[in-house]
């Protein structure tokens, strides 16, 4: 597998989509129906068939564009689900991991169905993903409109929630890195106290365990993995890259990190530089503080932050110098 492996990339989108569809969207709709927050009739009244061009009629600037498109549509769905679930009367926590019951361990009666999204050629898989994503967007739209129609949420609450969610992403990670590059004292506090120091940048400290910050130096190159699942400080930094959740990455990186970094990311860590792999758990979620590239002496924090990539925050890439 390589970072530019389209099959692996699409498989990651398929797996994530199935997870969000089953566990975050449809289970939530059912939960609200069962609790009487909205009714089936509300959903039917709120439904509208969206217009969209056939997959075959669309034109793409390059081969990666359709993959980025389905990835962006999934991202939009995930944000939409989060926005629609403003805390309100009738809401209750919904289990986010498959329970044993839902896996059918005790009784197949309770199993939540999964669908075979991975069959066929790459283009067939993309077309299917596009259609399935559109269906889920349609359900989400009806669900959101039904909540509004019932007065369970207000337009103001939704707008406020969307605003909050729009600032989440690797942008925050980039700001943390840029501040650490220009402010030694902040860097020290960041490494010492993690989430506490992050507040100085008006980034909400989140609630997901501790933040571990692994600083890359002339002697050490750090890389992050979560072999157990996909722990990552995503409440602070946004989501990790797609390959972070693949079994191949998890298994190889803890056994032969130097070769894995070279094979998967095309990054040669020089001899004499130690590779240090951080296995994240729910108690300490790690990020990498990459090295500041050469030629950035005159840049301000904002310009520095713009150089930081999501890959560099997990140690799969170095931050490139600014383009001349």
């Amino acid at each position, binding site marked *: 597998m390589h970072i530019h492996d389209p099959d692996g990339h699409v498989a990651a989108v398929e797996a994530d989509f199935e997870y969000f569809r089953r566990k975050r969207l449809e289970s939530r709709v059912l939960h609200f129906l069962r609790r009487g927050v909205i009714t089936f009739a509300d959903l039917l009244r709120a439904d509208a068939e969206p217009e969209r061009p056939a997959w075959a009629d669309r034109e793409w600037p390059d081969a990666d564009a359709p993959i980025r498109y389905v990835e962006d549509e999934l991202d939009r769905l995930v944000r939409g689900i989060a926005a629609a679930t403003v805390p309100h009367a009738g809401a209750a926590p919904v289990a986010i991991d498959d329970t044993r019951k839902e896996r059918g361990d005790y009784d197949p009666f309770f199993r939540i169905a999964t669908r075979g999204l991975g069959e066929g050629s790459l283009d067939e898989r993309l077309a299917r993903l596009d259609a399935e994503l559109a269906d889920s967007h349609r359900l989400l739209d009806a669900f959101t409109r039904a909540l509004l129609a019932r007065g369970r949420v207000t337009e103001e609450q939704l707008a406020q929630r969307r605003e909050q969610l729009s600032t989440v992403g690797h942008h925050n990670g980039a700001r943390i890195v840029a501040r650490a590059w220009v402010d030694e004292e902040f860097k020290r506090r960041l490494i010492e106290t993690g989430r506490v120091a992050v507040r100085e940048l008006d980034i909400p400290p989140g609630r997901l*365990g*501790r933040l571990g910050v692994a600083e890359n130096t002339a002697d050490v190159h750090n890389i992050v993995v979560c072999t157990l699942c996909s722990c990552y400080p995503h409440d602070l930094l946004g989501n990790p890259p797609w390959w972070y959740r693949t079994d191949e990455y998890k298994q190889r990186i803890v056994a032969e990190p130097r070769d894995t970094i070279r094979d998967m990311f095309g990054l040669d860590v020089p001899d004499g530089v130690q590779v240090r*792999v951080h296995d994240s*758990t729910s108690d*300490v979620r790690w990020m990498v503080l990459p090295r500041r590239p050469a030629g950035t002496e005159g840049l301000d924090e904002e310009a520095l932050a713009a150089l930081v990539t999501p890959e560099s925050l997990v140690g799969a890439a170095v931050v490139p110098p600014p383009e001349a």
Partner: protein
Amino acid sequence: MFRAGDRVRVLTDVPGGNPRTPHYLRGRTGTVVRAHGVVENPLDHHDPYPPLYTVAFPLPGGDETVADLHEEWLAAE
């Protein structure tokens, strides 16, 4: 209690212990690099686990794997 610099071995099985101890580290020997004390993490587990340590495990060629493990899983080496 362990301190940074202590050599520790990861136990192979701790009934009732934190299940999130990676299997590939069980039975391996490493060095404590940081002691975190008891970490409260109410989102992931209701009761506090025993003290948490960052432990480094050597890999061939001088590289290393670092993981955060609870005291119940560690024995002095």
